[in-house]
């Protein structure tokens, strides 16, 4: 029992420590934005790495989810004689939930892991201290460009995910499962509004912020050596994934309440 309490207590204090470090990083980001101009050349480099290079993965996962979801929905809807209803359901789900969440999870895995590993390696090999010794503010050089790049990239990536998800849903429903194209398109356009896309884009920006800040925090506060970097990377991906799902829950309720 005492052992159990010790484990719970230790993990609780570790969680509090991470929260404190996260809050300090957020303050540091605000301080950096106030005192330094944005390094747009680094932002552009990061957009290429985080955005452009992530496109194939995001398109592939978005398409797969759209296709599979359309197939599953069609299975039940066709029993009810509502085959043409697959289109709006797929579009609605892709815009509001599946597009942002699947894209967010892929970015947390691909970009988040890379951010925490890179910053962690820089910290353990004293490169972060070298930046400080050369009168460079590490948050300004390492965190802010990545954050801005991901805030710009995420809405675009989610848009691609939604577009290709809906497109894959159409390909599965119309040519493969035989849904009437005119009804499919008409119902999709009728029941999917710009506010559905807006919800997805709002979520994408928040997810980008959450992924980048959590992964930067873990990387910059990683332990010593290869083990420390590995642990930080695992924690970064797990924490950002959980944070993303929890955030999604609250954002969904808030946006639904706001829009209803």
């Amino acid at each position, binding site marked *: 029992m005492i052992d159990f309490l010790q484990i719970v207590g230790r993990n609780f204090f570790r969680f509090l420590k991470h929260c404190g470090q996260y809050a300090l990083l957020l303050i540091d980001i605000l*301080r950096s934005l106030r*005192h330094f101009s944005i390094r747009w050349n680094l932002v552009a480099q990061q957009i290429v790495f985080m955005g452009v290079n992530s496109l194939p993965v995001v398109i592939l996962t978005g398409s797969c989810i759209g296709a599979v979801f359309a197939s599953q929905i069609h299975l039940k809807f066709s029993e009810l004689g509502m085959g043409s209803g697959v289109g709006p359901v797929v579009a609605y789900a892709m815009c509001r939930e599946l597009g942002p969440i699947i894209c967010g999870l892929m970015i947390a895995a691909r970009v988040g892991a890379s951010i925490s590993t890179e910053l962690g*390696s*820089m910290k353990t*090999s*004293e*490169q972060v*201290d*070298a930046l*400080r*010794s*050369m*009168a*460079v*503010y590490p948050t300004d050089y390492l965190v802010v460009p990545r954050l801005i790049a991901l805030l710009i990239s995420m809405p675009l990536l989610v848009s691609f995910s939604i577009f290709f998800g809906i497109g894959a849903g159409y390909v599965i429903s119309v040519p493969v499962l035989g849904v009437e194209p005119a009804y499919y398109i008409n119902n999709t356009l009728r029941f999917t509004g710009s506010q559905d896309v807006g919800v997805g884009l709002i979520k994408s920006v928040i997810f980008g912020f959450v992924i980048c800040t959590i992964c930067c925090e873990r990387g910059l506060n990683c332990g010593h050596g290869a083990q420390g970097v590995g642990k930080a990377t695992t924690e970064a991906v797990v924490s950002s994934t959980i944070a993303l799902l929890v955030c999604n829950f609250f954002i969904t309720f808030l946006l639904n309440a706001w829009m209803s």
Partner: protein
Amino acid sequence: MISLRNIHKTLNGQKVLQGINLEISEGETLVIIGRSGCGKSVTLRHILGLMMPDQGEVLFEGQNLMGLSEIELIPIRQKMGMLFQNGALFDSMSVGENIAFPLREEGKMTEDEIQSAITEALEMVNLGGQQSKMPAELSGGMKKRVSLARATVRKPKLLLYDEPTSGLDPVVSDSINKLILNLDKTLNMTNVVVTHDMRSACEIGDRIVLLHHGKVHFLGTPEEIKSSQDPIVFHFVNGISDASVATE
């Protein structure tokens, strides 16, 4: 130029520095020696403001670094340079980009001036024409020399060296010592060097300070340290292990 006054620092429950007092004059080369874990590198990090003391003051040109934020430390750090133990070169940048980094950050030079400064800095450390290589392609000694070129390219007033010759063969170590002496002559910098290497310490140091148990145990010229009969100094200078000293 630098004053360390009653510096105390505890790391992970261990008292690393226990009241360090040091005065470093402009233009001098001070060598800090001592056994592993005695607080040499931690002292160096306090001078650069990479660490803040739990107690005491660090003064650079009369300005107390204690309590300054990272942003307030930026103009002070622009007057300093540091050679890190493992070079700390940015592995995503080439040798030339590493050396150009502090100049580009400073933003006072044109690209042509930066290119000629890179060439000059690399020639100074006998690595002319290596600017396009990546750090992963360099040997340990070459990395240290590139790091030295990067630290000096901005011609700082104060240069800090963290174990510049550790892990290098005697020939490369000697070349690094000569480089430090040469820089001292040509740029008239103030140097603080942390090392284990007694030969190197005597060759480059104007004064040598021996840290023991987080305190200044001995401070004097190379001649004075060589002739000291203090048991701790004697054992360290001559590389003799002594159980009674070790467990003191």
